[in-house]
């Protein structure tokens, strides 16, 4: 479109006079102030997407808290000793998880023997701390009995039908508890589920029962030398959970 100078000048003169009327300006200002006030007083309603983001963040935060709590509690419980508040969690949750992570029956049994070994180490730790009270004894004995029962159920019997491997372990355990820690115990294979570590059951009978044959193989507690000998035979590494306060050498089973 060809524009002449005159057209431009005429258009400029007319256009430059174009302005908003006083009423228009007043209305515009009112609209600006009222809209601004509405925005300022409008309640913040999150959009659906922001709600989901917020919800997701809440879920993540909750999961993080749970993980922290569980992992922290798990760590604390793994270091707990008989009589501690978290010892039950260690025995009934943490250690079964460790067992579930072992797939072959052989490795499971090795782990169960290790747990039985830990029971002794726990009691030694308590003794070094200042003593083993009745509650701690009971808790430790229940845990050991649980380990033995599981070991018994999964053990491979020999051609005579005797679970000699488990028997040996239990004998050694009982000996260590009795002779080393001076705690009378009654862990046995065929014994009742509920154990009494307060000395109501004769240790000798327990050892007799352990044999599974009815023969009284030994009325005397096993001595330490015998224990060491068995340890060599089993070839199980001596493992102590981290953080344990045990300073003395932990006997192997």
């Amino acid at each position, binding site marked *: 479109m060809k524009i002449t100078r005159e057209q*431009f000048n005429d258009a400029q003169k007319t256009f430059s006079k174009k302005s908003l009327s006083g009423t228009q300006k007043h209305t515009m*200002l009112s609209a600006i102030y009222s*809209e*601004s006030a509405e925005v300022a007083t409008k309640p913040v309603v999150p959009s659906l997407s922001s709600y989901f983001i917020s919800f997701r963040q809440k879920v993540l935060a909750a999961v993080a808290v749970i993980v922290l709590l569980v992992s922290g509690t798990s760590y604390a419980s793994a270091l707990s000793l008989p009589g501690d508040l978290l010892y039950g969690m260690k025995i009934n949750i943490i250690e079964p998880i460790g067992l579930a992570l072992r797939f072959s029956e052989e490795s499971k049994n090795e782990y169960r023997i290790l747990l039985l070994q830990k029971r002794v180490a726990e009691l030694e730790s308590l003794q070094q701390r200042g003593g083993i009270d009745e509650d701690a004894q009971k808790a430790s004995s229940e845990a050991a009995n649980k380990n033995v029962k599981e070991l018994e159920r999964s053990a491979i019997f020999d051609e005579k039908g005797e679970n000699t491997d488990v028997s040996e372990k239990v004998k050694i355990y009982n000996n260590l508890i009795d002779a080393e820690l001076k705690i009378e115990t009654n862990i046995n294979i065929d014994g009742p589920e509920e154990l009494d570590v307060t000395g109501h059951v004769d240790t000798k009978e327990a050892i007799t029962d352990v044999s599974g044959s009815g023969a009284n193989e030994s009325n005397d507690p096993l001595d330490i030398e015998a224990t060491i000998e068995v340890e060599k035979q089993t070839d199980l590494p001596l493992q102590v959970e981290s953080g344990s306060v045990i300073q003395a050498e932990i006997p192997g089973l």
Partner: protein
Amino acid sequence: MEDIAGKDNNRENFESLFQGYADVVYRLCLYKTSNEDVAHDLTQETFLRLWKTLSSGKEVTKPKQYIYQIARNLIVDYYKSDKAISLDELQEEGFDPRSNESSAEIVSDASILRAAIEALDKEFRDVVYMRFVEGMKVTEIAEILDISENLASVRINRGKEKLQEKFK
């Protein structure tokens, strides 16, 4: 007390800018869109944004430049949106300039000015519009466009020459 005083101060400052620049912004929007209603809405939106900025306590160091920049951004947004309809489209859809003589004249004037100025190179368009349509001084143009007065002056003269060449 300080907050109230600050708000009053902001409001006073805002209304001073509104009275001084509402018509300038309105004409710029009208020039760019050839639509009075759109120009009205864009002007209102420009000053709404300015008011929000000032009332939030933010300092606007170059208010004229700030206002002009908001208006230009809004115009760009308007053309990016589906709302923008060209004058030709309006006429095709039944727009009758004779039904509103004043609007038709303004739209026509805006079209003439735009046809002449927008034919110039980009660097001359704003300065020529501000100088020869709005009648702004070189100082003010330099301030709004954030360029030196010297450069603004050069561009005005060069733009004027280019425009005169178009008229020949």
